[in-house]
Each structure stands twice: as C-alpha cells, then as structure tokens.
C-alpha cells in the first residue's frame, strides 16, 4: 500500500516537473548573436509593417512616441500596452538585443516572465533575425518617453504568468517563415510580411476558448475580439474574392474600399502603418492576400 502511494507521489512529482520544464520561459542567448551593422531603413519598414505604433503610440499623429498605455479589451480582460520607447527606466532603453529577440520570438520578458499572447509574438516569431535586429536598432533611435504603464486588468486565474507557458506549449510553434519556392518573389515577400511582422491573422481569424487562432479558419474573420458586437471581415477569397489585387493595394494605401466606403475602427490605424510601406511591399501583401483560398469563417449570430 505504502509502495503504491510512493509510486503515485513520484509520478506526481515527475508530472509537475515535466509541466514546470515545459512552461519555463524560453530565451534567446546573447552568445548566439554575431556582430551586426543594422540597416535602419529596413528597421523602419519593419516598424511600419509590424504596426508597433497602433498599440504603443497613443497619439496617432506622433507615431514615434511609443509610451504605450493603450487599452486593448479582450474576452479575458483588458490589457494595457507597455512603454516600448527607448526610455532607460520606463521603456526598453535598458534592453539588450538578446532581450528584444527573446521578446519577439519567444514572448518572454527580460525578467524571464511570459508575455500574454495579446502581444502577437505568435506572428513575430516568424520574423527573420536580421529584420528583428534592424527593428531594434530603429526603435533605439526614437524619442524616449517617460511613464510606466498601469498593469493589465485580468481575472485572478490569469495573473499566474506561468500558465501562459502551457498556452505557448500548445500554440506557439517556434517556426520561422519558410519561403515557398514554387511561388513568385512578390508572393513570398507578401507571405512573409502578412504572416510575420504585419500579423494580419491575429485580428482576421476566429479564436478558440483559449484565445488561440482556429488554424483551419485563419484569415476567415470572426467576432471583434474587443467585444463591440462587430465582425472582423473574412479576407480569404470567400470574403473578398471579388477584390482585384489593385483593390487590396488601395485599401492598404488609403483605406478606400471598392464600394466607395473607407475602413474604420482599428483597421484605420493599420492603414496608417501600411501607407508608410513601399508600393512594392503593398503590392506584395496584396498578392499574397489575393491568393488565400476561400475559407468560410464562423457564422454570425
């Protein structure tokens, strides 16, 4: 009998240990980084493609002041975007390059805590090493903004950051972007931008009960995660199949929709980002979006 209990206890310890191991926040080591001369222009492109300003610059007219503090409502609670300006104490001024890579690829803070996946590292993990390094160098050139941001407003059970490790174990695959050699250069550039920095699927996909993207319905739209009762449009061919590549380019350039209307809501902020990209990059994004096979999204109540 005692032996059975002992065995059970051992098993329990083993399982707990395993879970602990699996939920340990992953880091990128500084030793892996070779010396590098960053390309600031490309860093700026990544900044605009990545939509950093949408969540971290409270004033849309001062896209470079990344003081954060903007509320993002979700079914799990309200998140407040952190200060990512290069302020030494309040922002990321004290971060090393490895800290930044760790945040972008692994979703782990310099202090070794899991970030909540409201920070779209599920997409940023696809980014190329050089692009992340360029982005970091570019962010360092922006003005430091003073001010610590208030903490997220979440239910108690979600404040256990370690639990995010389980989420990551299930939903963070750790894969970087892989090009498709059968497709054109333009398509591949678009695929990289859309699935990596621009993280389009993060809003344009339905999410499951854990708040992870339903992978079979990626890009097929769904309920507005901010709880407005609104609907985020399906951007596969099932939703915008009648858009020409030019139409999508125009949306990204000016926000003008083919029906004469303009995009509103959060997409307006996205357009402020994509409007700053090169015409070639907008064409590339449009080429990839245009190629998305028709997928039916969830049905609206």
């Amino acid at each position, binding site marked *: 009998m005692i032996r059975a209990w002992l065995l059970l206890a051992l098993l329990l310890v083993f399982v707990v240990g395993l879970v602990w191991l699996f939920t340990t926040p992953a880091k990128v080591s500084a030793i892996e980084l070779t010396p590098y001369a960053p390309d600031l222009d490309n860093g700026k492109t990544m900044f605009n493609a990545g939509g950093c300003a949408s969540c971290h610059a409270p004033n849309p007219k001062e896209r470079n002041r990344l003081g954060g503090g903007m509320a993002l409502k979700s079914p799990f609670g309200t998140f407040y975007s952190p200060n990512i300006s290069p302020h030494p104490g309040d922002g990321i001024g004290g971060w090393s390059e490895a800290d930044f890579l760790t945040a972008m690829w692994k979703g782990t803070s310099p202090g070794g805590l899991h970030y909540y996946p409201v920070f779209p590292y599920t997409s940023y993990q696809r980014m190329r090493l050089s692009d992340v390094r360029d982005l970091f160098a570019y962010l360092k050139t922006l003005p430091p903004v003073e001010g610590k941001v208030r903490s997220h407003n979440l239910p108690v059970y979600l404040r256990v950051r370690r639990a995010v490790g389980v989420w990551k174990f299930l939903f963070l695959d750790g894969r970087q972007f892989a090009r498709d050699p059968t497709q054109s250069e333009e398509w591949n550039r678009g695929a990289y931008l859309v699935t990596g920095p621009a993280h389009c699927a993060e809003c344009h996909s339905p999410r499951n009960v854990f708040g992870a993207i339903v992978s079979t319905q990626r890009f097929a739209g769904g309920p507005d995660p901010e709880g*407005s009762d*609104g*609907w985020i449009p399906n951007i596969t061919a099932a939703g915008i199949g009648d858009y020409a590549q030019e139409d999508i380019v125009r949306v990204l350039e000016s926000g*003008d929709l083919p029906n*004469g*209307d*303009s995009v*509103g809501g959060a*997409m307006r902020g996205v357009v402020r980002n994509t409007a700053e990209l090169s015409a070639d990059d907008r064409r590339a994004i449009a080429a990839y979006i245009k190629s998305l096979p028709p997928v039916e999204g969830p049905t609206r109540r």
Partner: protein
Amino acid sequence: MIRTVLAMFTLALWTSVAAGQSDPVSERKSLMKGNLEGARNIVKMVRGQNSFDLEQVTAAFEQWTDTAKKLPNLFPEPPAQGTKTRALPKIWENKADFEAKIAAFAKAVSESRDKAKTLDELKIAFPPVNDACVDCHELYRRPQ
C-alpha cells in the same frame, strides 16, 4: 366636422413628427447610405472610372450638407439592446468629441461644396470631406 378634421390633422402631424423623432437609427442609416452613394460616384470620377458629372457632384454635396445639418440630433441616446446599429457606445461616452467630429465634417463640406466645379477642383475638394468621414468612423463606427 371642422373640429374632427382639425383633430385628425393634428394627430397625423403629431404621429409623423413623433415617428420621425422616435427612430433616429433608421434615419441616420438612410442618410449614411445616401452619403456613401454620393462618395462612391465621386470616387469613381476621381479615379477616372467615370467621367466628371457636375450634377452628381452637386447632388452629393447637397446630400452631405443635409446630413451635416441633421446629424447632431440623430444620436440622442444609446440604442436599446439588440438594435441593429453600428453606432458604438463610445459616442455617448465622449459626446463632446463626437460632436466636434460632426462639426468638422460640416465645416469640410461647407468649405468644399462650391469648389468642385471641375474634375481637377474635385480632386482637391473631396479628400477633406472623406477625411472627416473617416476620422469619425475610426472611433465611433463598429466594424461590420
């Protein structure tokens, strides 16, 4: 007799006025539809898909002028639960800002309406109006 007619007339007037006031949601929806119609026509001209048509331009600006006049009274209170509307509750939380946005739209329309007599003029006159629409829709209109 005359009393009955008068009573009926008053009643008819009262109900029509009441009906007009009691349903600001459908009134603003039909206004917005008309606004979009005008914008769509103009966008097609600006892009060179349709030829310039002064009559359509004038009609669009008249429609927008009418809208600008009516909008301040069309958002009296948050809609009841279950109402089909894209007007976000934020409107009533930031009423002053919302009204400022309507005023900006009215200003853009009135400043541009007489400066769109040719295609080249229209290309300059239309964007400020469009920007005013977008400025408000960004914050106060629900995604689809």
